[in-house]
C-alpha cells in the first residue's frame, strides 16, 4: 500500500501543530508502508506565488510547491481553489501512484488536489480546524462568539475575490462541500470539532484523537527551582489567548514574585506584546522566546517549566502542545473551550478555566504554582493519559485500520 500525505505545510517549516502531526503520522506509517508527501511552501514576503516545485528525500520523497501569501489570504479565491496546485498534484500522483491519500489542512493548498486523481484512489481527510466551513478557520466572530450562519458571515466582512471575477461566498461553500463529498473517510481529532462541523454539513465524521511521538517528552525529569515557570507554547496570537494570559499574569505576579512566564512561539504581535510588557513592568518576569526550529529547545523549555498554559479563546481542536506538556509531566491549565476539556480533565491532569477569563486563569495558575505536590500528582496523571491515548504507535495502527477498511 502506498500512502500519500497532503498538507498545506510541512516541517521543518510550520504554521501550526497540524503539520507536525501530519509529519509524525507520515513518519510512523512510512516504517511499514510506502509513503510520499505533498505540501506547500510559503513565501510570506510576496503576494503572487511562483509555483516552483522542489523535491527532497529523507525517509520518503517530499514534494514542496512554492506558494505565497495570496494562498494564505482567506479573501483570495486561491485559498480554497487553485488550479495550478491541482495540476501539480495530478503530475505527482501520476508519478507516485498512491493507493490512499491522506489530506490534512488544505487552507492555502486548496481543495484542488482532491480532484486531481481518479476515484479508485481512496481519500481520507483529517480536520484540524473549521476551514471547510469558515474561510477564517476559527468560526469566531469579531466579538469572539461562535458563528451560527456560515453562509452570511455576519460581522466578519469576508468577501472572496478572484482576478476580475468576485466569487460569492455560497459558491465557496458549494465547491468545498461538493469536493468533500468525494472523500471516503473524514476524521476529527476532537468531539467538539466533529459536532460543530456535522451541525453545518451532512458529512459523516469519525473521532480519533491525534497522536504524537512522545518518547522524548516521557523522558523529561524535572528538578525543583527557585522560580515557578509558566509556559505557553505555540503561536503567540490573540486567538490563542496570549493577551488573556498576559492580563492574568499581570495580576498574579504581584502576589507571588517567584513566578516567571515564558511565551515561546511564532508571533506577529511582537511589538504590541513588548509595549504591553513595558507598560505593565513585566519585562523582568516575562520572557519572549520567539520562533525556533529546534526540538532540543522545545524539550529544554518543557523541562524548565512548572505549569503549562493553553489559554485559547477559539474552539481549539486537539492542540499538540497540550499533548507534549502532558507527556512531559506538566500540569495543564487550559480554557474550557473546544477540544481542550476532552484532553485536560479538571482536577486530574490539570485545571480548566473559562475561556477569556483572566481572573480565573490567574487563580488556577497561582494555585498550581504554589503547590508542588499538586503539580506533581497532576503531572503524573497527565503522563499516564498521554501514554495511553496519544502515543503515535497506537494512533498509527488505528489510522492503518481506517486505510485498510476502505
Amino acid at each position, binding site marked *: 500500500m502506498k500512502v500519500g500525505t497532503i498538507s498545506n505545510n510541512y516541517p521543518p517549516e510550520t504554521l501550526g501543530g497540524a503539520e507536525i502531526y501530519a509529519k509524525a503520522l507520515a513518519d510512523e506509517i512510512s516504517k511499514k508502508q510506502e509513503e510520499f508527501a505533498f505540501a506547500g*511552501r510559503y513565501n510570506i514576503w510576496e503576494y503572487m506565488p511562483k509555483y516552483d516545485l*522542489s523535491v*527532497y528525500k529523507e525517509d520518503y520523497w*517530499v514534494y514542496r510547491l512554492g506558494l505565497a501569501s495570496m494562498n494564505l489570504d482567506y479573501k483570495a479565491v486561491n485559498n480554497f481553489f487553485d488550479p495550478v496546485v491541482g495540476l501539480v498534484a495530478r503530475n505527482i500522483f501520476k508519478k507516485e501512484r498512491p493507493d490512499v491519500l491522506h489530506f490534512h489542512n488544505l487552507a492555502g493548498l486548496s481543495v484542488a488536489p482532491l480532484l486531481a486523481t481518479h476515484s479508485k484512489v481512496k481519500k481520507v481527510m483529517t480536520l484540524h480546524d473549521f476551514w471547510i466551513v469558515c474561510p477564517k478557520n476559527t468560526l469566531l466572530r469579531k466579538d469572539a462568539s461562535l458563528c451560527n450562519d456560515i453562509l452570511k458571515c455576519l460581522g466578519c466582512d469576508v468577501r472572496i475575490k*478572484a482576478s476580475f471575477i468576485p466569487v460569492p461566498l455560497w459558491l465557496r461553500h458549494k465547491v468545498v462541500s461538493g469536493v468533500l463529498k468525494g472523500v471516503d473517510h473524514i476524521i476529527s481529532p476532537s468531539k467538539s470539532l466533529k459536532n460543530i462541523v456535522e451541525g453545518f454539513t451532512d458529512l459523516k465524521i469519525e473521532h480519533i484523537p491525534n497522536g504524537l511521538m512522545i518518547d522524548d517528552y516521557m523522558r523529561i525529569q524535572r528538578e525543583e527551582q527557585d522560580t515557578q515557570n509558566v509556559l505557553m507554547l505555540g503561536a503567540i496570537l490573540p486567538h490563542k489567548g496570549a493577551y488573556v494570559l498576559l492580563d492574568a499574569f499581570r495580576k498574579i505576579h504581584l502576589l507571588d514574585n517567584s513566578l516567571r512566564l515564558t511565551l515561546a512561539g511564532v508571533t506577529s504581535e511582537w511589538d504590541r506584546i513588548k509595549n504591553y510588557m513595558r507598560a505593565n513592568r513585566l519585562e523582568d518576569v516575562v520572557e519572549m522566546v520567539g520562533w*525556533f526550529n529546534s526540538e532540543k529547545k522545545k524539550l529544554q523549555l518543557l523541562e524548565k517549566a512548572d505549569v503549562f498554559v493553553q489559554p485559547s479563546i477559539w474552539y481549539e481542536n486537539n492542540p499538540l502542545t497540550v499533548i507534549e506538556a502532558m507527556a512531559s509531566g506538566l500540569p495543564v491549565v487550559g480554557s474550557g473551550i473546544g477540544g481542550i476539556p476532552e484532553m485536560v480533565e479538571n482536577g486530574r491532569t490539570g485545571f480548566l478555566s473559562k475561556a477569556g477569563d483572566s481572573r480565573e486563569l490567574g487563580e488556577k495558575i497561582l494555585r498550581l504554582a504554589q503547590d508542588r505536590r499538586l503539580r506533581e500528582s497532576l503531572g503524573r496523571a497527565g503522563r499516564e493519559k498521554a501514554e495511553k491515548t496519544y502515543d503515535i504507535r497506537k494512533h498509527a495502527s488505528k489510522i492503518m485500520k481506517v486505510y485498510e477498511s476502505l
Partner: protein
Amino acid sequence: MKMFKSVSAYLGYIKTVLKYAVYRSGVDVCVGMLSATSVEAVPSKLSQYEALLTNTTSKARRVRVTLDIYPVDNPAHPLRHHGWYLVEVSLKPHSSSKFSISYDWSSNIQFRLEGKEVKLKERWSGLFSESGLYRLHLRMDDENNTLKSDLSITQRLLDPSMENPAVGERVSDFTRDWDSRVKPVQPPVSVPLAGSVAAKARMSVINAIKPTLEAATEIQKRQVLRISRLLERRIDDLQNDLSDVKSDLSGRLIGGRLEALGTHTGGTNLHVDWLAFQERFRGSQEEIRKKQLAYLGYFKGRENVVDIGCGRGEFLAILRDAGINAIGVDSDARMVEECRRKGLNVIKQDGVDYLRSLEDGSIEGIFSGQVVEHMYPSELIEFVNLAARKLGKDGVLVVETINPECLLVFANSFYMDLSHIRPVHPETLKFLLESAGFSDLKLSFFSPVAESNRLKALESGKTAGQNADFTKIVNENFMKLNEVLFSNQDYAVIARK
C-alpha cells in the same frame, strides 16, 4: 498601467497553468529545503543553516550553489548588500544530500555536503551588516549556468555590540525610543488580483513612496545618531575643560594666598618679596629662634608635628634639632625654597587644605606661628575645627599670634605686613578652641615692649614741690597706660585635646 500590470499578472498565471497542464514540467535538480535553526542571528556567533540538495535523475550531476545575503528592505548592490558565496558540488542520483552551512556573519563560513567540507569557490563580501531583517537566498545553477531552483529564508540580524559600552547604552536607549515613536510602514498584506481601482491606486502610491520614505527615515535616523554621538563627545570635552579650569583656579586660590590677595586688592599681582620683608621687619632668624625655643617643651616626645605657615622654617629647625619628626606647610614659594635649602621637610600648600587632606587623628601636634592673623574669620574657624579633628588623643596645638590687647602693635607691626587681615583677640581664640573641643587651654603672653619704650614711672621725692600721693597716682596711671599701650606684643594659646 495598473490595468496592464494586473493583466500581465493574470497572463502569467495562465502561463503557469498551461506549463503544468501541457508540459508537465518535472524537477531534475533542485534545492529541496532550506531552514535555519533560529529566527535570529548574532554577529560573530556561528549560525547554522540546513538545506537538502536533490537530484532526481539517474546520473550524478554537478551544480553550482550560491548563497546570497542581502537586507530585505531596499537592497541595493553593492552598497546595501551583505555578500555572496559560491560552491560547486556534485549530487548523487535519485537522492537528496544534506547541505549544511555555518556562518558567523563576518568572515567564517563553512559549507558541508553530507558531513564533508566543501571548498569555497568564489566569494564577495560587502560591507553592509547593520542589524535588521536579512534574506538568505540559496540558488542552484546547473553546468550550463541556467537557474534550476532557488529558495530563501528570512532572518533577523541582531545589534552588534558597540565599541564604547557607555555610549552604546545611551545610543541604544535612544534608538529604542526612536523605534517606539516611529511606526514602520506595514507591507501590504493582500493585493487581490482584481480589486477596486481606488485600492490599487492607493497601494501603488504607498509602494512608490515607501522606499523613498524609508530611505529618508534611515538617513535621518543615522544623522540623529551621529549628532548625538558628536554632542556626547563635545560634552565630555567641555567637562574635561571645566575640571581643568576648576583645578587651575583652586590651585591659584590655595597655592598662592598672598598672590591671590594681590589680585583681590589691586587686580594685579604685587610680587612682593616676602622673604626679604620678613628679614627686615620680623626680626632676624636668630631672634625668632630664641623666642620659639619656649614652645619646644610642648612638643617633646611627640611624632608627626605639623608647622602650619612655617615661614623661613625656624621652628622646624628647632624641632629637627630636638629629634622630632615634623613637616612644614607654607603657601609662599620663596619661603618653601628657603626651607628646602636648609634641608627641611616642607610642602607648598595652603595650611587649611593640607590639614583637610590628612587622616583624622593622624597627627600629634600642630604649631602655627603668626599665621591666624592672615586668615579670614571663616578660614580661622575651619582651621580650628580641622585641627581638633586631625589631632590624635593628647594632641597639642600651639597658636601664636599678635596680641591686640597691646595697642602699640597697631602703630607698629600689625599694619606693616600687608597680608594681615585682622588681629585675633586672645579671648576669641580661646572661645573658638573650646568650642572646637579642646580642653586644658593656656594663654601665655610674651615679647614685652622694651622697657625703654614704655612710660617711665616717676621717682618719688625727686621733683620739687610734689607730694608722694601725686607721684603714686601718676605712676598708677602710667602703669595702666603701659598695660594698654605697651604690654606684650605677642601671645600664644596652648591647647590640648
